[in-house]
């Protein structure tokens, strides 16, 4: 592309008021977390797991977006792909942040680790997977696969920034084609081993896809905010147009429905079959104010975003989309809380100070790394063969641009 040379060095400019925010979140969160870890270890372990699963959603969702971009050979998402690549490359950081969970797992988080499989049939039936060895081996394998995939996808993308060679696109396509299977299997394993295993007696074949749907939904909300921000601050202002914002909005809309479909299906099947081994999970989550949380998920996680996103022009309206994306974060937090927190607060929903501390810590660490990634590489794939197409210059022989006269 003659339009874009390799000397593109738009940095992520954060306003002076906000510049200290990530570091502040990190330090504040770390202090709260450290105190909590000694004062109330059990609560800390669950709050930390909650924050971990929340941010793991976004990192895995980022990797998914990169993969579907390559699998569909998409053009529109080329200018925003680098953002998703950086999000995916936060997965090795997530591996490091898994260490506290690995340490606290037997003593404070997973009850099955303290049970004798010979006296617990539900545990015995899942034996090779649900053993101490199985738990740690799976964790290592998952993080190795994720880091390798995320890193390889970004490596070839950055390589293309230098060479502009089509072979890089083919390489990324190959990683995506194999990677999407690995992604599906590993994400399901992760969701089962770390979140569903909190109640190891429970069965739900939809749990992996449930976590996946919620993850991609949250990622798209995050992605929309990041791209809108980078477009406004200038890093992506030259390449991100209405098309990109609209299409991310459309995907967010689609995943709003998909999540609802999966979440409802899981509930519906268990409700209809009415087998105690399955229903207990939902019965627990209908106690006290958890019932209101159920309703909040039905109407806040699905109905409200669904109705707001229905109109085409809604997806382009920042005054609507920015609060909606932040609302999506809140809803995903509530959803993860709905999955994890009944273990420590069975009677009522609670928002513990440690939940907020752990969330702040993760947000701080990951945004610091993201800013570092973003500032050390070109802001978008500057030599991707599909970039021109994404910018709308593919109409051979097209004359003047046809903008509607206002």
């Amino acid at each position, binding site marked *: 592309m003659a339009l874009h040379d390799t000397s593109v060095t738009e940095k992520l400019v954060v306003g002076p008021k906000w510049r200290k925010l990530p570091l502040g979140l990190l330090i504040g969160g770390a202090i709260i977390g450290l105190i909590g870890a000694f004062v109330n270890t059990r609560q800390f372990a669950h709050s930390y797991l909650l924050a971990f699963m929340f941010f793991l959603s976004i990192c895995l969702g980022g990797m998914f977006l990169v993969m579907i971009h390559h699998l569909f050979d998409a053009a529109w998402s080329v200018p925003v792909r680098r953002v998703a690549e950086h999000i995916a490359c936060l997965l090795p950081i997530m591996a490091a942040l898994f260490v506290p969970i690995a340490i606290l797992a037997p003593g404070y988080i997973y009850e099955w680790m303290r049970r004798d499989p010979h006296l617990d049939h539900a545990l015995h039936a899942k034996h090779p997977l649900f053993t101490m060895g199985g738990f740690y081996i799976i964790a290592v394998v998952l993080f190795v696969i994720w880091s390798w995939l995320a890193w390889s996808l970004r490596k070839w993308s950055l390589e293309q920034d230098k060479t502009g060679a089509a072979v890089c696109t083919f390489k990324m396509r190959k990683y995506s084609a194999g990677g999407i299977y690995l992604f599906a299997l590993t994400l399901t394993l992760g969701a089962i081993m770390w979140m569903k295993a909190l109640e190891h007696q429970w069965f739900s074949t939809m749990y992996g896809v449930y976590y996946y749907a919620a993850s991609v939904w949250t990622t798209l909300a995050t992605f929309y905010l990041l791209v809108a921000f980078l477009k406004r601050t200038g890093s992506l202002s030259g390449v991100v147009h209405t098309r990109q914002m609209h299409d991310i909005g459309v995907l967010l809309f689609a995943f709003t429905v998909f999540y609802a479909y999966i979440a409802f299906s899981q509930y519906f099947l268990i*409700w*209809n079959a009415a087998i105690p081994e399955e229903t207990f999970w939902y019965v627990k989550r209908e106690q006290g104010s958890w019932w209101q949380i159920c309703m909040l998920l039905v109407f806040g996680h699905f109905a409200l975003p669904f109705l707001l996103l229905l109109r085409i022009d809604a997806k382009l309206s920042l005054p609507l989309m920015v609060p909606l994306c932040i609302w999506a974060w809140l809803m995903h937090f509530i959803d993860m809380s709905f999955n994890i927190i009944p273990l420590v607060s069975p009677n009522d929903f609670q928002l513990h100070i440690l939940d907020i501390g752990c969330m702040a810590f993760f947000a701080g660490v990951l945004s610091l790394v993201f800013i570092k990634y973003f500032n050390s590489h070109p802001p978008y794939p500057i030599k991707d063969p599909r970039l021109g197409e994404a910018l709308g210059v593919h109409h*051979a022989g097209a004359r003047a641009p046809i903008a509607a*006269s206002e």
Partner: protein
Amino acid sequence: MSRRKRTRTIRSAAQSLTITENAMAETNIKYGLIAEFDTTADTLHAAAMVRDAGYRRWDVFTPFPVHGMDEAMGLPRSKVGWFTFFAGLTGFTLGMLMIWWMNAYDYPIVVGGKPLFSPIFSFPVAYECTILLGAFGSLFGMLFLNRLPKLYNPLFRSVRFARVTHDKFFIVVEATDPRFSDIDTRKLLERAGSKHIEEVRD
């Protein structure tokens, strides 16, 4: 050619002439100007020019959907979505009502210890009804807004227009447009790059 045969030929020619004259007499209303184009890019560009000239009653005909034509024509967003939405809402409500009526009111039967009516088990059917009526709303809303089916269009009188289903692109400016003028509109279409412009009469 025998004399008798020649007479018949002349007579039939005269007959057809009379028919044409009659037809001309009946169809003397000017419908509009029709301009032919060869490529999508030319058509998009010409449509943008007609749009910017402020015409209201005009249309573009192409053999296949052309990306960007909505903006080039300055068309507002389609209203079909409203038909879909309200039809879908009706479908959902009717689906729920139907199940309640059949299972809990008209012929109540307890199945599998479940309540006589619950939105949980009714949901899949209500959801299907939403989709069914939503699809009907889209289809019939679209037909209604386009005033379809329409069995006759004055453009069928143009011989060249038949190629619109093959490889030609057409812009039609109707004579009822307040800005329409034989000379200026023709000039505009010429400037827009049309190589063939003709008047269509109805």
